[in-house]
Each structure stands twice: as structure tokens, then as C-alpha cells.
């Protein structure tokens, strides 16, 4: 390779350089701002994680898998995965190989920023460059890879269903400019390199293009406009990037180390929350996932639009969107970049100021004695199980009765914490964003549990279970959900369950499945009692029953279609009984179901 120009410069690099300098300085300022907004201990934790070998490896692996290869999207849909990874990985490789070429052939130009990008314009092929044929081939190969991705991206705008997406996001005006400039970059690159293929050399793509369109491409007076256009497309893309959804590309690289450092959302708008909002690629996967999507009017209330409004600081819409959500967490579970839609919304709610602030510190816990269980008092000594039914179970007493009956049959000595009524666990208050009030309840309940001297806290409500696991400080006490506990009783042989011919479908309650990661235990329990069929969407993707306490503004009448949608999803394999493990799901489903709905405790109690 030899250089064609002594100066190693042409004016057409300017648009690219302006865009590049702008985006780099914008990202640097953004990075410093987000790090400054983090609370002090979080920032320390982040810096420590950056030098811990274990997290370094995890960061590199995650960035490679998520940002370049898009493994999560591959798992979702092959075509969508290919589209993303071909563009991201292909572009990345073009940049890397471009730099390698510069280092190999014109090392003295390595300090020039634009040189690797416009390498083929500045150099000419010589006799000895057959060695470079390998790199030429790689460059053309990756360019073809990116072009195939771009072609799929164009196709996706017409037929998103081919990519497993029923609905996609409505792009904003700037998004469209970013999108079109991104689409233009690579065809323009091909054209520009096609012009220079007879000077600088090329491979199967650029060289062939040069041969085929010889009459046009061999005319070197047309060369500069093509390179100008290529540079302009890059420049426009970089300049609009901070104001479009493509900001997720640089932000995600920050979000992954922050997440791996174990940082949580502490402020609704600053620090980690901001990193999440800017990491949202507006892909719209959450639109199809959202259980509210059955009603068209709710489509604009999905997480992708929350992120957009948060970026625009549209307070009215932010409040509307964050109050309506059911907090089922499905958008969080399927999000390929890890935006926590439910936690972001709780954080928005926690910003509200209220004129009336409930205070529970005056409640005397002595008024809330623990009731003795129904079991034979002689067995009560060793187990020390404390059963907390919770508010929702109190409304569906068949569950607590079945649970008590199971405990008696298994010979477990237990005490009943709220037989005569008790305090709320605090989770509904926390979902409403009133964290201080929730914490007061947590303290009161902790006091009662500690005083009872229990070793195991048994819960039949996943809403309670989640907050007991996440927020309560109950060292030395095992917090266990009744699905897990029943499975343990069956496995240890204390509970003998007879199998019937009935087929069951298990509905994964949001708080139990996505909230606490319990999917297998209830299924194992049900397998002991009968046949198990699966819903069309289950486990991580199970559909919220619609009764969730997460939503503040969603009225009773608006929830019906969601419940019916969830029911039709559950009954595709026509099970005899719908089984769930949440009192709230149970009563919501019972309202509209065409077949029996019961709690897992009731099913097992019947078959013991």
C-alpha cells in the first residue's frame, strides 16, 4: 500500500469529524454527569467493581454478548437477532479491521482519527499488497454482513411480524432522521469504495461492483461526491444520535457495568435510572409483552413510551404512565437491555408529595397476638413455623383453611400470625411509591415475627412473599412461600399426595415468578397431584391476571379484558382446573373463568 496524498487529508472528512467530536464530548459529559448523580456509596461500589477481576470478566462478557452479538434477541427471534448482531457486530469488525489495516500499512497515520474510516480513499494498491487481500476480503465480508442487516431492518419496517413483533414503536421525528442516516451509511460506503476499488483494491464486493458498473464507477470525477455523501451520512448520524433512540448504543456500555456492580435505582430521574432510560432502544418488544396491550388505548402506556416521556420531561404523561401500570414486571423480564420498567415506575411514584401521610408507629403490636395452630400441641416444639396469611388470603379463606389442613396432615407444628387480623405486609404501599409508610409496616411486622421466636415464616401470598424476601431483615428466619414448602413436605414424605386424572394448568403469579424466580416448585407439586399442561405463554412470560395492586388508576371495568386475555392464554391446552399460587390471581380469575380456579394449597389438600 502506498499513500495517494502527501497530506493524508481531504475536506470530505469534516462532516464525519464534526459528528465524531460532538458525540464523543456529549458522551463524556453524560458519563460524568451520571456518575456524579450516583449516591456516594454506589459510586464507590462502581469504581471498586471496575477493578475487581470477577466483575471485569463479567462486564466484558456481557458487553460482548449484549451489545455486539445481541444473544438475548437471538433467543427471542432468530431473524431479529441476526438483524441486530449483523449490524452491530459487522460495524464493530469494520472499525477494528480498518484500524488493523492502518497500523499495518500506514502506521504513521494511526493518530489520525478519520484515517481508518476512509482508508480506501487515501491509499493505492501496489505490487506487494496481495498480502492485504485477506483484509480486503474481511472488510468486504463484514460490509456485506452489515448490508444484509440493513436490508432486514428496512424489511422489518414493512413486515414486523416476520421478526416476531406484532406491534412496534412509533418513531419520533429525530428517530426517523437517525434511522435513515444509519440506513444510508453502508450503501454509501459500498458505493464510495466501489469507486476506489480499481485504485486501492478491493475484494469480492467492491471490486465486482467496480467491474459491473465500470462505465459509471471508473469515472473518477464522481468519486469525491460519493465519499462526501458517505461522510455526511456518518456525520448526521452522530450529530442526531444523542437525541434519538440510538443513544442506547453508548449508554448500554455504561449500564452493564453499573448493573453488574449491583447498583439499584435510588433516584427516579438521576444516576442509574437515567442510565436505564437512555439505554432504552425503543425496540418496542415491551409493547407486545404488556398485558394492558389488549386494549389499544393503553399501548402508549408501555415502558418504551415511559422512557421517551422521561427523556422529554413530560411530567403529565410520566405520571399517567407510571400510575396506570400493573407492575407485573413482564417488560423488565423480556427487555433485551435490562430496563426495569416496574422499578422505574415505582421510583416515579415515590416522588409524589402527599398532604396526608399515614403513620403507623403508634400501633401497639401487643394487640396482634400470634394464634396457636390447629395441630396437636405435642408436635409443636421443634418446627416453629409461623404462618402469615396476609390481607388477600384473608379474603379467600379457603386458601388459609387448606393450608392449615395441609400443615395438620403433615404433622407440622405451627402458629398463625394473623388469624385474628394483622398488619399489611407493606408491599401494596411500596408499589404505590410510599416507601416511608411501607417501611413503618415492615418494622411493625418484624417486631411481631421476632417476638414469636419462629424459625420459618410461611406465606401463602406471593405479594407478601416478595417484600418479606426483599425488604425485611429477618436473619435466622427462613422465609418460604407455600409452594416451596409443600414441595418440601412431599419430597420428605411427610405429605402423601394421591394422583388423580385431572389435568392442571399453573398460572405463574407475577410476584412469585418474575418477582422471586419460583417457577419449578409449584409445577413439581402439581405433577404429584395430577397431569400438568402448560399455558401458551408461561413462566417468565406469563400474563398478569389483571387484578394486580400495582396499578393505581386502572379501574375495575378496564381490567376485565386483561383477565379474559390471561384466561384464554391459560386454557389453550384445555385443562380441567386452573391452579395458581396467589390469592389475588385466584379471586380475579374466579370472576370470569369458565372452569374451576383454585390455589395450589386447595388442590393438594384435596388429594392428600
Amino acid at each position, binding site marked *: 500500500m502506498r499513500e495517494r496524498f502527501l497530506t493524508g487529508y481531504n475536506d470530505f472528512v469534516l462532516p464525519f469529524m464534526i459528528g465524531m467530536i460532538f458525540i464523543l464530548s456529549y458522551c463524556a459529559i453524560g458519563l460524568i454527569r451520571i456518575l456524579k448523580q450516583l449516591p456516594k456509596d454506589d459510586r464507590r461500589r462502581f469504581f471498586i467493581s471496575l477493578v475487581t477481576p470477577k466483575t471485569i470478566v463479567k462486564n466484558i462478557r456481557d458487553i460482548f454478548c449484549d451489545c455486539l452479538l445481541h444473544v438475548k434477541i437471538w433467543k427471542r427471534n432468530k431473524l431479529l437477532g441476526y438483524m441486530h448482531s449483523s449490524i452491530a457486530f459487522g460495524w464493530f469488525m469494520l472499525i477494528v479491521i480498518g484500524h488493523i489495516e492502518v497500523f499495518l500499512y500506514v502506521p504513521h497515520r494511526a493518530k489520525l482519527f478519520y484515517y481508518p474510516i476512509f482508508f480506501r480513499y487515501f491509499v493505492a494498491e501496489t505490487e506487494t499488497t496481495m498480502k492485504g487481500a485477506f483484509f480486503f476480503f474481511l472488510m468486504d465480508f463484514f460490509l456485506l454482513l452489515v448490508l444484509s442487516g440493513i436490508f432486514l431492518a428496512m424489511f422489518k419496517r414493512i413486515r414486523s411480524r416476520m421478526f416476531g413483533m406484532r406491534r412496534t414503536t412509533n418513531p419520533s421525528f429525530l428517530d426517523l432522521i437517525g434511522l435513515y442516516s444509519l440506513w444510508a451509511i453502508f450503501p454509501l460506503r459500498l458505493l464510495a469504495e466501489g469507486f476506489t476499488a480499481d485504485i486501492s483494491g478491493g475484494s469480492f464486493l467492491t471490486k465486482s461492483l467496480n467491474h459491473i458498473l465500470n462505465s459509471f464507477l471508473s469515472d473518477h470525477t464522481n468519486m469525491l461526491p460519493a465519499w462526501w455523501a458517505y461522510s455526511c451520512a456518518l456525520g448526521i448520524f452522530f450529530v442526531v444520535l444523542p437525541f434519538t433512540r440510538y443513544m442506547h448504543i453508548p449508554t448500554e456500555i455504561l449500564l452493564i457495568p453499573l448493573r453488574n456492580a449491583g447498583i439499584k435505582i435510588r433516584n427516579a430521574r438521576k444516576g442509574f435510572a437515567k442510565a436505564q432510560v437512555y439505554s432504552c432502544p425503543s425496540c418496542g418488544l415491551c409493547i407486545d409483552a404488556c398485558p394492558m396491550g389488549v386494549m389499544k388505548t393503553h399501548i402508549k402506556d408501555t415502558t418504551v413510551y415511559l422512557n421517551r416521556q422521561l427523556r422529554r420531561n413530560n411530567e403529565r404523561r410520566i405520571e399517567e404512565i407510571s400510575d396506570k401500570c400493573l407492575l407485573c414486571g413482564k417488560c423488565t423480564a423480556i427487555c433485551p437491555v435490562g430496563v426495569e420498567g416496574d422499578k422505574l415506575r415505582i421510583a416515579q411514584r415515590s416522588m409524589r408529595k402527599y398532604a396526608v401521610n399515614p403513620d403507623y408507629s403508634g400501633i401497639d403490636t401487643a394487640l396482634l397476638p400470634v394464634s396457636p395452630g390447629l395441630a396437636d400441641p405435642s408436635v409443636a416444639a421443634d418446627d416453629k413455623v409461623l404462618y402469615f396469611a396476609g*390481607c388477600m388470603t384473608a379474603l379467600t379463606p379457603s386458601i388459609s383453611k387448606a393450608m392449615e389442613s395441609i400443615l395438620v396432615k403433615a404433622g407440622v407444628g405451627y402458629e398463625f400470625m394473623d388469624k385474628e387480623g394483622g398488619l399489611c405486609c407493606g408491599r401494596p*404501599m411500596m408499589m404505590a411509591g410510599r416507601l416511608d409508610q411501607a417501611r413503618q*409496616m415492615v418494622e411493625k411486622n418484624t417486631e411481631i415475627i421476632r417476638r414469636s421466636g419462629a424459625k420459618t415464616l410461611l406465606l401463602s401470598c406471593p405479594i407478601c412473599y416478595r417484600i418479606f424476601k426483599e425488604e425485611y431483615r429477618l436473619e435466622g428466619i427462613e422465609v418460604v412461600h407455600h409452594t416451596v414448602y409443600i414441595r418440601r413436605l412431599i419430597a420428605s414424605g411427610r405429605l402423601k399426595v394421591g394422583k388423580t386424572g385431572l389435568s392442571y394448568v399453573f398460572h405463574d403469579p407475577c410476584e412469585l415468578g418474575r418477582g422471586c424466580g419460583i417457577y419449578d416448585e409449584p409445577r413439581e407439586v402439581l405433577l404429584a397431584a395430577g397431569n400438568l399442561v402448560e399455558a401458551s405463554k408461561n413462566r417468565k412470560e406469563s400474563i398478569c391476571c389483571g387484578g394486580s*395492586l400495582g396499578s393505581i*388508576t386502572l379501574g375495575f*371495568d378496564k381490567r376485565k379484558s386483561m383477565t379474559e386475555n390471561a384466561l384464554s392464554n391459560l386454557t389453550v391446552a384445555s385443562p380441567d382446573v386452573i391452579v395458581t399460587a396467589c390469592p389475588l390471581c385466584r379471586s380475579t380469575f374466579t370472576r370470569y373463568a369458565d372452569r374451576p380456579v383454585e390455589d395450589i394449597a386447595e388442590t393438594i389438600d384435596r388429594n392428600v
Partner: protein
Amino acid sequence: MDFGFKISPSSAVNLDNVDLSLYDRLHEVEPDIAKCIACGSCSASCPAGRFSGMSMRKVILDLQRGRQKEAVKMLSGCMLCGKCLMVCPRGINTRHLILAICKLYGED
């Protein structure tokens, strides 16, 4: 002079003298409040009732009659657990109603 009994103060509410502007705003935020039939299902199921005398039924009635102080005092015992939401035969979104009251009405 103490006779060992007394006449209880009048509990009559003169609706002509009551300022219901806050109630009207509340009604705008959560129109469900007008749906209440005062059946008392919410109060019967309320777990906070035994500590604070919280009764959603009374809160709604009090607000409609302009007795804000009593309503707000009662409301400060609510734990927002959502049981009232589940038992309400009229499908009133009680949790939103409670939060809206907490936002609109001051404690004075």
C-alpha cells in the same frame, strides 16, 4: 352541675354552609367516588379498622358532607392493602381514591 348524663352535641350538617370545592376536584380526579352506595363492605374487610377506626364508607360519606377533618384523620390509618378494592360491589377504585384524597386534602 353534673347530672351523670348530657345531651350529645348536634351532628346535623348544613349542606348550604359546606365548602365542597375540594370534593368536586376529587370527583374530577376519581369519578368513582360518586358510585359509592355506602354498603360498608370496605369497612368490614378493612384490616386497619381495628387500630385507627378507618372506614372507607365513613370517609366517603364525610367528604360528601364536608366533614374533611374527620375523613383525613381516619385515612391516616389506611395501609393501602387493597382489600376494599376487591370486595367493592360497585368496582370503585378505592386505592386511587385514597391516594387522591391524600394528595388533595391537607391535615389542617
